[in-house]
């Protein structure tokens, strides 16, 4: 339960802010000038705030969509991400947000229409829009109604594809809506033992799989995101059994794409994360690469990636598999 909401003065009379505050029903609403005066402050603890995150309601200014990094696509030529939300209620130990942000409080940009206006400018060419880069697309949905508001919008733009990236099992707004051809609900999945160990506060694998089955029964296109792959001593049996379990439940006709990539971090995130992450062993095995990333030593990385790619190709056509590395 969110007890504290910070509200930018500029949007204090915005009807969406009112509705969100009513849904959150916080103990206190604190007026602020701009979200950066809290969110960007140096002396704060991401780890302590993860204990009880507050919600900051803000208005986004400047650029609303950004090109995605190279090699992170799922088959489209034009690819952008947008972030209506910063941070996430789950506590995945590998998450780069722990190194990117100083604060674990949620920032929700409520001027959805400005995002939509920017996205509309690309409506005549086939373009993919990724919504889950800086947050889980669905996890705050009961409060934000982001999906409920953006689905009808994307429905009207047949050449624009929306990827919702999530681990959430809150699928009601999707189930209640007729499936649309240009929306992909992409689930990040890990073997159950790894979920327990490092994806803290996130729904367990079997619940995510149940949500995928429900969504496919309602004709939603699904993406599977095996990213990050985590190196464990018995990774062969762990991932073999995991893929077997996942693909025993998936309807391949409604599978849009599969991505995979091993655990990696830009070096600028590694240092702050060392002070935040509970599961220190996860980071201690990483090594710095010449291109300024931290990842597994080459031998481990290649073994893990090769094995998982080969296993995946037993179940999925390679045209649907994309390597994000």
């Amino acid at each position: 339960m969110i007890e504290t909401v910070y509200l930018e003065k500029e949007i204090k009379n915005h009807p969406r802010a009112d509705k969100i505050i009513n849904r959150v029903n916080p103990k206190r609403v604190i007026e602020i000038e701009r979200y950066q005066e809290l969110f960007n402050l140096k002396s704060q603890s991401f780890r302590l705030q993860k204990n009880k995150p507050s919600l900051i309601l803000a208005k986004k200014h400047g650029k609303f969509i950004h090109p995605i990094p190279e090699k992170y696509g799922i088959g489209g030529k034009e690819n952008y991400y947008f972030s209506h939300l910063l941070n996430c209620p789950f506590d995945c130990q590998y998450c780069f947000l722990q190194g990117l942000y100083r604060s674990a409080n949620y920032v929700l940009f409520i001027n959805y229409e400005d995002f939509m206006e920017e996205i509309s400018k690309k409506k005549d060419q086939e373009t993919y829009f990724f919504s889950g880069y800086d947050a889980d697309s669905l996890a705050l949905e009961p409060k934000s109604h982001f999906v409920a508001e953006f689905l009808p919008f994307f429905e009207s733009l047949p050449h624009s594809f929306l990827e919702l990236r999530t681990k959430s099992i809150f699928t009601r707004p999707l189930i209640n809506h007729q499936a649309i051809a240009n929306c992909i609900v992409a689930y990040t999945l890990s073997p159950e033992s790894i979920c327990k160990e490092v994806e803290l506060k996130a729904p367990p694998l079997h619940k995510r799989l149940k949500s995928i089955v429900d969504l496919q029964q309602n004709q939603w296109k699904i993406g599977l995101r095996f990213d990050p792959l985590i190196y464990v001593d018995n990774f062969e049996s762990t991932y073999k059994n995991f893929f077997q379990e996942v693909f025993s439940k998936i309807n391949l006709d409604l599978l849009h794409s599969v991505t995979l990539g091993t655990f990696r971090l830009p070096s600028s995130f590694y240092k702050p994360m060392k002070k935040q992450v509970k599961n220190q062993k996860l980071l201690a095995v990483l090594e710095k690469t010449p291109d300024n990333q931290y990842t597994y030593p080459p031998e481990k990385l290649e073994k893990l990636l090769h094995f998982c790619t080969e296993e995946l190709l037993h179940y999925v056509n390679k045209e649907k598999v994309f390597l994000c590395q």
Partner: protein
Amino acid sequence: MILLTTATEIEARAVIQKLKLKKLQDPYFSIWQNEEVILVITGIGKVKTASAIAYVFAITKSSIKAAINFGLAGHKYLDPGLVFLAHKIMDFTNGKSFYPGISFSFKDITSPLTTFDLPYTSYEIDSGYDMEGVAFFETCLKFLSLDVIHFLKTVSDNAKNPLPPQLDKNFFLHLMKASLSALESLIATLTSMNKLLFTPPSVDLSFFIENWNFTESEKNILSDVLQRLMILEKPYKVEALKSLSKHEVLQDLKRLL
């Protein structure tokens, strides 16, 4: 250890008794301590507050993990005797605002708090009033994260119940005693929050520095490798390294990862 600050002796008296604090022999400030808490009576106003806090942080090195400013405050509308946690601190002089991070469940009253340079008696601003808050927060922020810097204030007067010209010390003492349970609860909360923080294991390089002439950059690499070995619980035998060159030592240790 938790740092408590009050502006005056009368605000500190009840907590000194309750927590059985012992006075330190200090030439500059009135400082009291037990195993978990260190209290400093700062004096009234921003400058005295900032200097007392900086002083205590200096003498205690890095053992302070959280700070609470505890004391009396005027308020526009809250009744005398009510205790509130400040959720926004405003400097009346320059309009700057600060936000203590309430990263724990707190169901009781919270309120803004405005810091003035002189006593404020017109009760027009919707908040609590004090003369130290901003200085307490800004100084503590040099040493701690905003999530562990808090204000627990007991309302002493409001627009309907202004302070009389002759102050009654017993009334203040009574108010402070009544707020002690809220203080103890906040101390317990901040103490337990500290357990959520991870401190990477510290590495002792003395053996390596005595036996090899590592550059500063090599010491950093060595420290990182040794720390990772500790986290991964991979032991190494120092005696076996003695016959190696410093580059071989680094290579050997890295190989263990």
